[in-house]
């Protein structure tokens, strides 16, 4: 159905409504009716010849022709529009092949339809009345409301003090930029030192960051968490202290561009249109621009802000040209960013558990994410600490007695019985068969503590 730029539907509607009145007053063959039919038939016939179908819709008392708002005033057609609306005919569709008499029959039908109480579709009733090229429709609003989970906009549980302080300071940094002022590099450096010196050293803080987070914060909390997760990955990648400082700073500021995107768009649970998508994707460019203008920020910070949504395979945004591979620093932050986003709540989904999030990272490895970095990250997340009780795919129950640094998902376990009282054999779950398949997989962690003295003794001897 093509748009009709020059067709004014006002005269047609006015004529049609008048015809409807006339059909109640005069017999079918009366010259007044014939004249009116002819008056409205000719212009519409021209449009049908060119466009095949003409659909006139009334929305908010505004006329639309073939889906495009009509440029005429509408004031002169107000009465006709009102009358049709009252009849429940907000939409008139006319198709090629229309005969003049069909217009009369349609108008006549409309004047009698109001008292019809049958459930038969109008189209069938029109067809029965000999009208096959005109149909009427009622326009009703599409209710696009949806029930979305409601999340707090920050952590509600008591926070590890240094982590709490870091969040407060990060919020101030984001507020500063959002209010149009420039970033203070000294504040940033202090915050980076707090993150490296205190937050990252606190197991409690790390636990709060690694776990699923039942709050939705896409700006400062997310940035602090990504900074700590990047630091964790950076350590796993054996970066020296200077590079770690640069990494944490870059990760902390990677989403600073979101301060230039309206929060309602950042948090919008529903579908984004092209303009909104462009705006949200623009946060990478905005961020880099903000950081370019900030004196004292490390030169790689804008790189990370610009590239952290780019995949190693060239996918993602912004479009930086073919063959542009993100800097390694950006690749590290990308892994942390995706993990944090997945384990955080969003208005359109529940937060993921850490193990689920790691699976998503694993799936993206090699395409969007650097495989080695994903493996290093998953290694850094200790799913099976020494002493934890686990079940294997062979339905064996065991206790982790040693982790494998190169294969942390396959620790050395001591097999026990279901009541954790017996110590049977010790097995290395990283062992594989001749085809490279693991002989055992850990499929479940079991809540609880080893209760037998034999198992506890194993832990104390470290064997």
């Amino acid at each position: 159905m093509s748009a009709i730029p020059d067709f004014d539907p006002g005269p047609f509607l006015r004529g049609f409504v008048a015809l409807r009145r006339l059909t109640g007053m005069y017999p079918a063959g009366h010259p007044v009716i014939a004249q009116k039919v002819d008056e409205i038939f000719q212009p519409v016939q021209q449009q049908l010849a060119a466009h095949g179908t003409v659909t006139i819709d009334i929305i908010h008392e505004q006329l639309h022709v073939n889906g495009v708002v009509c440029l005429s005033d509408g004031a002169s057609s107000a009465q006709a529009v009102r009358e049709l609306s009252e009849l429940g005919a907000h939409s008139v569709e006319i198709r090629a092949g229309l005969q003049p008499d069909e217009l009369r029959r349609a108008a006549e039908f409309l004047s009698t339809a109001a008292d019809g109480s049958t459930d038969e579709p109008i189209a069938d009733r029109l067809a029965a009345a000999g009208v096959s090229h005109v149909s009427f429709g009622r326009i009703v609003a599409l209710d696009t409301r949806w029930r979305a989970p409601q999340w707090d906009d920050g952590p509600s549980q008591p926070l590890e003090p240094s982590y709490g302080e870091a969040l407060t300071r990060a919020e101030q940094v984001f507020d500063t930029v959002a209010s149009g002022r420039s970033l203070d590099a000294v504040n940033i450096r202090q915050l980076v030192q707090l993150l490296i010196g205190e937050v990252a050293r606190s197991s409690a803080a790390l636990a709060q960051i690694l776990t699923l987070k039942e709050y939705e914060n896409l700006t400062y909390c997310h940035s602090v968490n990504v900074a700590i997760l990047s630091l964790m990955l950076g350590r796993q990648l054996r970066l020296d202290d200077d590079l770690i400082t640069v990494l944490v700073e870059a990760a902390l500021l990677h989403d600073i561009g979101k301060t230039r995107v309206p929060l309602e768009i950042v948090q919008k649970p529903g579908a984004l249109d092209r303009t909104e998508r462009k705006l949200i994707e623009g946060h990478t460019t905005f961020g880099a621009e903000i950081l370019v203008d900030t004196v004292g920020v490390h030169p790689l910070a804008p790189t990370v802000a610009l590239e952290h949504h780019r995949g190693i395979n060239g996918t993602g945004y912004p479009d930086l040209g073919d063959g542009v591979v993100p800097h390694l620093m950006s690749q590290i932050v990308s892994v942390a960013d995706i993990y944090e986003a997945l384990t955080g709540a969003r208005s359109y989904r529940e937060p993921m558990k850490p193990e689920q999030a790691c699976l998503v990272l694993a799936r993206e490895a090699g395409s969007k994410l650097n495989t080695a970095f994903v493996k290093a990250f998953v290694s850094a997340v200790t799913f099976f600490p020494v002493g934890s009780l686990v079940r294997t795919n062979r339905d064996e129950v065991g206790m982790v007695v040693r982790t494998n640094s190169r294969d942390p998902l396959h620790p050395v376990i001591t097999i026990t019985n279901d009541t954790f009282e017996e110590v049977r054999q010790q097995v290395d779950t990283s062992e594989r068969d001749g085809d490279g398949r693991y002989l055992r997989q850990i499929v479940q962690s079991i809540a609880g503590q080893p209760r037998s003295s034999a198992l506890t003794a194993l832990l104390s001897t470290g064997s």
Partner: protein
Amino acid sequence: MRPAAATLSKSAQPAAARRDDAARVEEFFQSLARAVRQFHTYPATSPRCIDAVEESHRALALIEVETLPCVVSPHELLVSGAAVGRGTLIEQELARRLYEARCQALEINRLATRRDLARFCTELAARRDGTTAPLGERLQNHGVERIQVSAAFEPQILQVSAPAAMSASVEHDRQRQDMQPTAGRITHLYPADKGWVRVDPGAATRGVTLSGLAVLVEDPASLAQMLSRLVSVPGDEPLSRGDALEQRCEDVARLYTSLEPAVARARFAKLATTVLSLEPTQRRRLLSDTVLPALVDGRPEGELLRDFPDVDLADALSLFLDVETAAPELLTTALDRLQLSPARRDAMGPLLEARIRERQGAATADNRNDAALRERTQQLIRVVTGDAAFDGFAAFDLCIDDATESVIAGTSEAIGATNLADARLTYLSQLIVLNPNPEVAERLLREAARLLGELEKAGSWTALTARLAALQQTATVFRESRPEVSTAIATAIETFYTPARFGRLLTMYEAGGAERATANLLITACGPSLTGAVVRGLQDAGSDKRILQLVCDHALTFAPALARSLDEFAVPQRVAAIRALGAAGSGFETQIAKQLTHPSEAVAREALRALGRVASDEAAESVTRYVLRQGASAAAAAEEVIWQFSPAATRTCLRSLLRQRQFVMTNPEFTLRLLQRSDRFEPTKLSDVLTPLKSLRYRFWNRPLARIGQRASELLQP
């Protein structure tokens, strides 16, 4: 910038001031409307357009308020509720155009620049068709931030062709939704006021919810198309069924999960059929990017796989084997998530086995009956029982093997080796491309010039070349669409090459070997933007052989600019420039030919040589004209040049000269020399001009002429 406090509210202004400002606002809109008219009629660079923008800019500066908001109506603009411009140029050129461009409101900042106004006029005056992006977006794309345009309400009317009886289902669904637990907040999954549904007038429904729409529209691809329309903006092309499904599959599945279980099952089955009917590449993309990840993550769209026939399901699941970290157990995990019946799961075994074999390729072709392989593939699809939290990990091999260890070990060093100046230049260049706003570009380019200097100082030639080339490429790309940005980049490169830097470049060039190769790369990277430095270099040291050599070696790059500046050069520089033009080949003959008449003999001689080097037909014609005009004085110099042309061009030249009897008579020695060397150019093809010369052989009293006649006769003999 004016402080924000300068924005006066209407009530805070004295009445007289308000009246004055209203007049100024109207005056501004009048001038803007005049400018739009000029842009509609004349090119944007015409003096009329420039003057109109200037006038408009002046009028804007006189307005008191910081920003000037107005609402667009078909015949006028509404400024602070007051109608402006009905029946005037404002109606014709602004209100109507803005209305037709589907603009609802306009907000002009008092600090809008001439460029902003000019771009606004250009875009508003441009003819709009169905594929043109909305005005606001076009202005944004051109970096116009001080003129904001908001788009008018544009509803999407969805045709569901549902009979009245269907309304009962929709109402039923609505009631069912209303009775659902009310946890969470109400939000809009799609824009609130954009979607409208055309239903049968007999339908008793009050409205249609999104899940109601999923009830009414049976075809998932059509539903996806409708959902796509709800997030479209004017100018967006309607999406095909496949594209819409690819983009909206997640939402379609989400809507289906909200339906009654029986209806949802039927819809998912339909969705599966629709996905299978997609074109293979598109289906594969949809499965790999959306459906399979959803299956592993437990999202609803993964469920559609359950309704795939076994063969298609096996094909789909085998796409998992493309995942780099996939362990063979990934297929097991996927099958677990699908919760297939035991019988169906058993049936999947051989199918998956076949696909795994296929992927193992020729290497395993000989081992088709290998028992170990069979055992392994059987294991791939074994049933894992129990609700295991970590079973998913079995699907991926995340062990840190030697290759991973090697990457990890090298990461710190690789990051440490980053050339920071190069990294900064990289993103500065990228930012200019992403946001080609002249003001932003100029700011970024200042920093870029400093960093280029650092690279040059450090001798990071590869990085310097790459960054200069990237900037030059951006300048080339933006030459048409963003001339201001293109010029800013060219100027930045030109300014970067100060006389001192250009001198260093020349030194490298002179050194030969690797250094010359580097210099050549740098020159190529800078392209025409280096012309300024070259011209300066020529003016400062035109006779320097290094610069002459450089200019000639890269003549094609510099020739256009040199041709433009030729008349500004003193003799030595002019000679050098002409030599470069000659080296550039065809295309500059006219400019070179003009130099033939230069009073300096050196210039004229160089021009002749240059034309000889160009050796095109046009060059030959120029030389001929020159010789005919100048006669004997020029003939000697031109003689050698003539023989440098191609045979055809030389013949043309000879024909032109020999046809002129007067020329022959007055320049017999020269003519004779031409004839003596003419036998190489198929003289029979010159018979039309040689034949008349034959009669000269009887002029015994003038020996040179007689010899001309004699030679002509000889040449004409077969």
